[in-house]
């Protein structure tokens, strides 16, 4: 029996722009643009559907999509964007869940932007160009 998942707040901030969901991990400085099928997958998972069973349900219609979705879920966890809800029980995915995701798309690219993470983790003495101020890194604009 698997648990359901939620966003890893407050470390992870979410901003919803209709088609795009932008997540910022304040801890790592990484930010993510989640759109298309990945957005539909994440929305379904956050609605309480088991991600593993959703990947399997996707795989029953489209093997490649199922494998990509499973990898996408691994990335969501690896980048600590989501966390299991303690004591919860996730719903098993139905064919309707999978169909709703596949209606949006069948590819699950994981877009991670880390230009901010280098800067948030900057060593304020050694990494910062003195003429640009503190704590602004080279080429920060």
């Amino acid at each position, binding site marked *: 029996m698997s648990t359901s998942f939620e966003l890893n707040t407050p470390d992870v901030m979410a901003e919803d722009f209709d088609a795009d969901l932008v997540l910022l991990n*304040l801890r790592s400085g990484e930010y993510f643009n989640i759109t298309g099928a990945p957005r539909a997958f994440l929305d379904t998972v956050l609605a309480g559907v088991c991600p593993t069973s959703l990947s399997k349900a996707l795989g029953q219609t489209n093997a490649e999509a199922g494998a990509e979705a499973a990898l996408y879920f691994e990335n969501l966890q690896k980048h600590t964007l989501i966390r299991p809800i303690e004591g919860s029980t996730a719903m098993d995915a139905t064919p309707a869940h999978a169909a709703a995701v596949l209606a949006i798309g069948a590819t699950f690219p994981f877009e991670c932007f880390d230009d901010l993470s280098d800067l948030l983790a900057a060593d304020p003495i050694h990494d910062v160009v003195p003429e640009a101020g503190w704590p602004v890194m080279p080429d920060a604009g």
Partner: protein
Amino acid sequence: MWCLKLAGLLCLMPDSISAFAITALDRAEKALKTAALTRISVAGVTVGIAETAPKVVNWLSGQFDPPAATPSAQVFCDYSGGYLPETRALGDLSEMSPLAFDEALATAGLFGSFDANQNRWDLFDPARNIGVRLLPHPGAYPEWEPTAPLANLLGWIMRAKGRMVMHAASLGIGNVGILLAGPGGSGKSGTTLAGVANGLQSVGDDYCVVSPAPSPVARPLYRMMKQDSAGLARVGINGVASPLNWQGKHVFDLREVFPEAAIDEAKIKAILLPRVSHLPHTKLERASAFEALQALAPSTMLQLGGDRSATFKACAEVVRAVPAFHLLLSEDPREIAATIRGFILEGGA
């Protein structure tokens, strides 16, 4: 040994840093009660500033008309170095990341920024609307300070008033305009200069104070513009009577060089993301909300320390409120300005 040192850094430093910050702000509050305040008005907010030696008021007062209103926020700039023994007692802060520093101050509800190398501190208490700048001596100002004085502190004061300093330029016509956002080298300043040299107006070429709700309005943070000689020559200006700054750029007051161009307010109707493209004609292409947020938020978050989550949220609010477009630039400043003028007048913005 290294682990013990690291454990000490992680466990003890946040409390001691916030305690130091509170003490410094308490002292500033006390000093401000009897100090002679120089008043400036930034985006409609009156700020009172006192210094132990006149430095920053000289750079700021020329940019802002002295307001009559009572200050609703105050800043004390202490160049006596009296705080130095206390900061030495904090230990070696050189390994502390800006994020960890933000978190340490957040435990006390404060914002701050520090430069461990020079022992320079900016601290702000939004509950009291009091800020303090600590420098070891009056000459310890960084060389970029005259162009953008008290940037962090003014940013936090604006935030406490529900406004947000954003790393963006602006252009407008008749108090309706656009923000220009993007990383250094994307063409923000050059586009702003092209605009003001060809009949458009601006509230700023580097930073703007933006009120996100109910619809975004941009106001000036500073009145100064920066541009190198080549950039000025591109718009037909051969020589501005101003010294070169640390970047080798001319720094000049927008009101002096382009008197008609300086406006106090612009309702923002779009965000443009300029890109130096060397096209025969400037083109506008719709950009996604993510692209606009990517152009606006990271550099604003980095340049305005303290509570980066609030900065991210405010940038998102502006992005959500207006459409965004890529601005693929030609090399002709007149044509660039005409394209933006048409975009604004024809309701594209």
